[in-house]
């Protein structure tokens, strides 16, 4: 599904190198976790996959189902089935959440050559997804993310993921700022979409999220590289021992 080969990334207008030859594969149906200390390049990796313009890829490739997506604009990447759940979702005053959701869903359908959703069909889908994620209706009527709590914003990210139906979802520290109840709801949203056709790359600092989203694979990232790969037990080991071993090893 997702294949990253020898990826080198620096900040666009600076010499600062953040990712130095990272290689990673996420198979169809797999839930992979990336754990690592602050500053290891986890968020940068998620941004580069989604196409944020602040970074420059100096070498390597990112393939989604065999197609190099690095030359694509962020909206084109979304249309081919990529989704990034943001660590800090943006607020958009004056744009109602429903308007935004409809614009996003129809924009992707348009890029894929599908017909726009009818309003009743759109509302049906939003209501079903909102109910699953415990999102009250009045939240959907408010401007996108404006005045939402941290937990509400993350739930809104998962709602978008559910409605946009990506095949590859990257979740950038979705657990940060969440209380345990919100964490469970977010995890349920991910677990509901777990099947042999979808893949997830879950980026997190703490093991806690992985109690609710059980990963198939755990990667440890440090200083812009994957320094160790293992099963779920690796996450537990990190929780017990911390990242110190990997920081010095890198």
């Amino acid at each position: 599904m997702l294949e990253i080969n020898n990826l080198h990334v620096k900040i666009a207008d600076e010499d600062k190198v953040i990712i130095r030859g990272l290689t990673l594969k996420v198979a169809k149906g797999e839930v992979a976790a990336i754990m690592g200390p602050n500053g290891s390049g986890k968020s940068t990796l998620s941004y580069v996959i989604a196409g944020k313009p602040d970074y420059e890829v100096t070498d390597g490739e990112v393939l989604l189902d065999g197609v190099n997506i690095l030359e694509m604009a962020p909206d084109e990447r979304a249309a081919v089935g990529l989704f990034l759940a943001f660590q800090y979702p943006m607020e958009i005053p004056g744009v109602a959440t429903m308007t935004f959701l409809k614009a996003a869903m129809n924009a992707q359908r348009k890029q894929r050559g599908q017909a726009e959703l009818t309003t009743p069909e759109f509302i049906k889908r939003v209501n079903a997804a909102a109910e699953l994620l415990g999102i009250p209706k009045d939240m959907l009527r408010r401007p996108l993310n404006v005045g939402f709590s941290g937990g509400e914003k993350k739930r809104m990210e998962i709602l978008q993921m559910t409605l946009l139906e990506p095949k590859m979802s990257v979740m950038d520290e979705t657990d940060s700022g969440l209380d345990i109840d919100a964490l469970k709801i977010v995890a349920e949203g991910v677990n509901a979409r777990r099947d042999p056709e979808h893949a997830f790359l879950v980026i997190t600092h703490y093991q806690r999220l992985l109690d609710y989203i059980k990963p198939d694979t755990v990667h440890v990232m440090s200083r812009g590289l994957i320094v160790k790969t293992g099963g779920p037990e690796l996450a537990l080991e990190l929780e017990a021992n911390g990242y110190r071993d990997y920081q010095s090893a890198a």
Partner: protein
Amino acid sequence: MNAKVTPIRTAAETALIERFPALKAGLPGPAGPREQAFATFMASGLPNRRVEAWKYTDLRAAMREAAPLAPKPDAAQTIVALKGNSPLAGQGVVTLSFVNGYHVGTEGTVPSGVTIVPLAEALGSGHPLLARMGTLALAQGDTALALNTAFMTDGAVIHVAAGAEVDGPIALRFVTAGPSAIATAARVLMVVESGAKVLLVESHEGQGKLAHQTNTAVEIIAGDGAEVQHVRLGLNSEGAVALSTLTADLGAATSLTSVNVALTGAMVRHQVYVRFSGGDARAQINGATLLQGQQHADSTLVVEHAAEPGGESRELFRTIIDDEASGVFQGKIIVQPHAQKTDGRMASNAVLLSEGAAMYNKPELEIFADDVACAHGATCGALDDELLFYLMSRGISKAEAEALMIESFVGAAIDDIAHEAIRDVLHGLVQDWLKARAARINAGAGV
């Protein structure tokens, strides 16, 4: 020593001075106020960038020539002028139409509690409310307003009786049209008595590309407890030099909301003078301006808190500037020594969509009282890259994402209009502007 200073007059100034004596004889009403106003103009000439209040909008340079004051249109010209569809058509319970500054017809029913007299008629008959025209000291000395007073051809005197709750908007439609560039000067006085509620909507529509010189003024005098809403739409001809002035004198516990939406015209300047004459009034003064090409738009605002408690003023000006266009915001809040407890907040935010776009922000506070809360903020920058990335990461194209962001940005200044249908019309005009921009970008990309 008595050195006589003879200012050097421009061609436009000379033309105005030469024409005034003959024009004033033909214009309605007593000549005295016109002469007095013209003397104000004579003393200063056309304002230029050496005058602080006009530093960024050089009217003298923009008005190379003084277009002739439009004559009253005949029936055929009126029909042609009114043929185009007004975006606000059908919104007023009563709509007064003006062509080239002259009242040409009234449609609908004047709501109960409201009387409307065309200004030419009011001037001719010596309407008693005219005693209150031009009485706001704050605006005296303003050259644009003085020129309007000197040359005003027609307009309306509107009276809203005490306690009247006017159901539906009073609409004024000003159309400028003709085969060559003309000057117009329309004037409106609206006196809203105690406790009355009213919504006044003006639209200024110019056709074609001609460099019409329009100068309109609206004066609002609000009695204690009155609630006044005001919406102004500027859709001038492409080449227009359009000046407009709003003055408002607010009694105790009044509320005023005024939103100006400026879209077309080569050089437009909207001036607002608001005085809190009674205690505890509230005013929300907004502007939404979208500029492209070589357009220049100026919003100049003076708000004076002159009573105790000083009341609450909120000013929100949002400007979108594309291509080589330029915008100006000059906002001044004055808090007089006795206007304690004044709460004033002024914001001017501009988004520059191109390298060549320019914005001049000049917020000022003059505070002479010691127990007040006043703040101003002026920002100017590009669209937020982070937000653009967020929207695009959801599959929304760059053009559509920018359009959503622009609409959201200027929409904030429009959303204070309580009247839903009018608000929707204005949002629709913003969307039209964005569609035209997208078409320009696509056309440019195709070359």
